[in-house]
């Protein structure tokens, strides 16, 4: 007789499928990272370890420019989106329900529901008109567009954090002679800080990763790293793209790890 207890949650083939799925998810990513250290210039022919392509990418002014632009846009957009999302989250939680609250909530989350290509086309047309009216061609359009689609990503963790906070804390502060501003400054804000940090990190990652909207909104010479890579895919690929991808990947993983650590701390 089999000396094994009956595991109720076990289903035939599920564990095998799951492990295969995880392998399949990571195999392409590891391959990509692996070939970024290839010494040769042909993508999938291994010619020994080298940091050659990182050096080449670093010395390529176009790549460096795109990298700087990506970081600048992501930093500005996440700062703007997080600030506005924090205000909106405070406005739509921790107070008695008011008329239009649901509408505000739906409007803020709207970018999550519209296909990116549609928003991209809309911004192409709209910003095109503004560009020809004002003559301004700068990075402002990209920052504005990125800020907008980052708002819901910043809003959700901040709102979640606010809703998890004990409502009586601000009441207690008011009871102890804190003005509404003092209560916000000394109680709400410090307690909300992890949520704001999480929101800012998500917004940063989302902005850094965007391809479609950036591709449609950018003016000439305003490539970000992702649109630069998309352009490169048309030509013969070199491991340089792997090197850039790996760098972006590392940045994303670092930010996400920080996000999870910050979020775990609250429990």
């Amino acid at each position, binding site marked *: 007789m089999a000396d094994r207890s009956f595991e*109720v949650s076990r289903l035939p083939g599920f564990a095998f499928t799951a492990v295969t799925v995880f392998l399949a*998810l990571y195999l392409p*990513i590891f391959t*990509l990272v692996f070939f970024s250290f290839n010494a040769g210039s042909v993508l999938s022919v291994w010619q020994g370890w080298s940091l050659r392509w990182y050096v080449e990418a670093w010395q390529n002014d176009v790549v460096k420019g795109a990298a700087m632009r990506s970081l600048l846009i992501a930093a500005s957009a996440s700062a703007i989106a997080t600030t506005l999302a924090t205000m909106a989250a405070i*406005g739509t939680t921790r107070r008695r329900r008011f008329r239009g609250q649901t509408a*505000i909530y739906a409007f803020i989350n709207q970018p999550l529901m519209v296909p990116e290509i*549609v928003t991209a086309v809309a911004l192409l*047309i709209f910003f095109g008109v503004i560009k020809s009216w004002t003559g301004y061609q700068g990075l402002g359009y990209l920052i504005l567009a990125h800020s907008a689609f980052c708002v819901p990503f910043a809003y959700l963790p901040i709102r979640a954090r606010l809703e998890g906070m004990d409502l009586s804390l601000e009441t207690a502060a008011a009871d102890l002679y804190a003005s509404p501003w003092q209560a916000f400054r000394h109680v709400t804000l410090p307690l909300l800080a992890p949520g704001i940090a999480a929101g800012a990190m998500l917004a940063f990652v989302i902005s850094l990763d965007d391809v479609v909207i950036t591709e449609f909104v950018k003016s000439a010479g305003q490539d970000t790293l992702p649109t630069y890579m998309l352009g490169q895919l048309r030509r013969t690929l070199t491991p340089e793209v792997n090197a850039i991808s790996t760098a972006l990947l590392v940045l994303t993983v670092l930010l996400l790890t920080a996000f999870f650590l910050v979020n775990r701390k609250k429990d």
Partner: protein
Amino acid sequence: MSPPPRLSEAEDRQRRAATRNGWLLSAPALVLLFIAASGPLLIVLVYSFLTPGKYGDVSWEFSTSGWVGILFSRDIFDDTLKLADAHLTIFWRSVKLSLLTTAITFALGFPTAWFIATRPPKARALWLFLITIPFWTNLLIRTFAITEIIRNEGILNKVLLAIGVIAAPLRIMNTDTAVLIGMAYVYLPLMVLPLFAAIDRFDMRLLEAGYDLYASRMQVLRHVILPIVRPGIVAGSILVFVPSLGAYVTPRVLGGGKNMMIGNFIELQFGQGRNWPLGAALSIALLIVVMLAMLIYVRAATKEDTPHG
């Protein structure tokens, strides 16, 4: 003498202040979203009813040519309308690939989500983190990573050739299959996460009850588990289907120039196609389809609250 029953002034003031502050605090975000996300959609709607300009853009004359052009094309010689087969092919490919993507991600994602949800708590957090990383990783990078596998000289072909399964490299790139593999790969986490959330809430004691009442493993799966986690299945399916339908990057990278989906077809109208009204009409049409899918999702999600039968 008692005062008439009314809202006292102080109470009234408090209520109005709450409403005013709520709107004031939300206003900057709403304005930003209106300028750079929702508002421009209205312009797209307007553009869909204009006449194409000669060198792109539009000329400001009312026309339904954009909307008509979705399904029909005008014959160059006798000016009659006939169904645009090329367009229909693109729509059919988009719908077909999106449905297949949804089916594949469900078939792979359900066991994965179940596996994660039945791990001990610490291991579960790690597995969940592992599924979340690809979710947040750049879509372009992930698409690019999958090309390294399925290219003619990619890992897949190398392995298959080495073990002698095939004699010549499989030509997967620039086919519908490539797009399908790519979309399943990039959207899989979108299926797993809501499924996990639903399974995580699932009361495992129900399984004991099922087995106790003589159900086999497959019967328990079919009659107990799947009906109860249905909201998660609906959520995951919508979350995969919607972005698949509007996909742009994956078909562009993996499908080559020819295997276009709606997203690429829309872009084409604003580029070489020089038919902005058609592009605008296609965008609005796509938006409507997506909204309808969302509506079905909301309906299905709220229906769970009402008793069955």
